[in-house]
């Protein structure tokens, strides 16, 4: 089924076309969400929200961009909203813990113990922490480039930015990751 057939089918409420769309793009959408939220169940839930939005708002797709570009945009926006909501929840939770006299559960990079062998899980956690500390646009550009292997041109289309802006975002993201990892290396956190 071609892209236009898929869209026409979905716009008329054809569930077979919708199934074909999900089969074709589910890996891409789940992986994009996963790159931003770093949690598989959350990424799958968000990917489902993306497909539901596509099905319900298919009339809004005018065809001036590729279908994948539209899906990437929805996936990125949904994932960023999810992170923002989680940040708000964490803020209130930490406030509650402070008033209750409890210890803040959030882990800083320097909290890693040095007397234990570092497991892969801890390394993963460190990677996610350094990526999460990037500003939103840098994080999105870096994630699309590294998790989805998209070219700078494709990222520029998705983020509706110039090619030079995307190059600059990814360059700054890499520098920032390097600085954060160096801080961690100096403190012998892993």
């Amino acid at each position: 089924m071609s892209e236009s057939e898929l869209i026409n089918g979905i716009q008329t409420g054809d569930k077979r076309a919708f199934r074909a769309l999900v089969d074709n793009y589910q890996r891409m959408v789940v992986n994009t969400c996963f790159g931003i939220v770093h949690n598989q169940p959350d990424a799958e839930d968000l990917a489902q929200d993306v497909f539901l939005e596509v099905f319900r708002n298919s009339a809004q797709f005018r065809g001036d961009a590729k279908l994948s570009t539209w899906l990437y945009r929805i996936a990125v926006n949904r994932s960023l909203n999810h992170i923002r909501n989680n940040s708000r929840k964490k803020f209130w939770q930490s406030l509650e813990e402070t008033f209750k006299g409890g210890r803040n559960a959030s882990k800083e990079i320097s909290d890693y113990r040095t007397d234990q062998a570092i497991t892969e899980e801890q390394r993963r956690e460190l990677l996610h922490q350094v990526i999460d500390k990037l500003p939103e646009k840098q994080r999105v550009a870096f994630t699309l480039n590294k998790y989805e292997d998209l070219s700078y041109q494709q990222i520029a289309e998705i983020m509706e930015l110039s090619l030079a802006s995307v190059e600059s975002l990814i360059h700054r993201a890499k520098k920032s990751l390097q600085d954060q990892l160096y801080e961690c290396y100096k403190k012998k956190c892993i």
Partner: protein
Amino acid sequence: MNCKEIHTDLIFYLSRELSAKKMEAIGRHLETCDDCRRFAEMMERQLQLIDQEKNPEVSPFFYTRLSARLDEKSEPTRSLLPSWAQVAAFSFVLLVAISSGIYIGKQTSEIYGQKPDNSLLLIDDFEVEPIETFLLNQP
């Protein structure tokens, strides 16, 4: 090249994004500097994790769950206002209601010429019937 210069470009060296001249210079430095080499290895291991974790296996029930959600009623309509604006709007309405109540109350009392009487009406039984009279009247 010194260690500080190496740390500026190491991530780009690992992804082979530098000029041949710079790549060679950093490569030579890493052969002689243990500290920079250890940092380069640590960073490379961290970045390789992305390749390991990307493209996670999607649940085989993904479409089944999605299909079930599709058959549910359409998403509940969300309020047009964000939550902070809802709180502000509610507070404003409450304030207007209280102010209106006070204003209407004042207007009404002026119309009927009533003034609030805060004095307490004391009932003094002794004034009505002194104890002596009471005792004299006892059989």
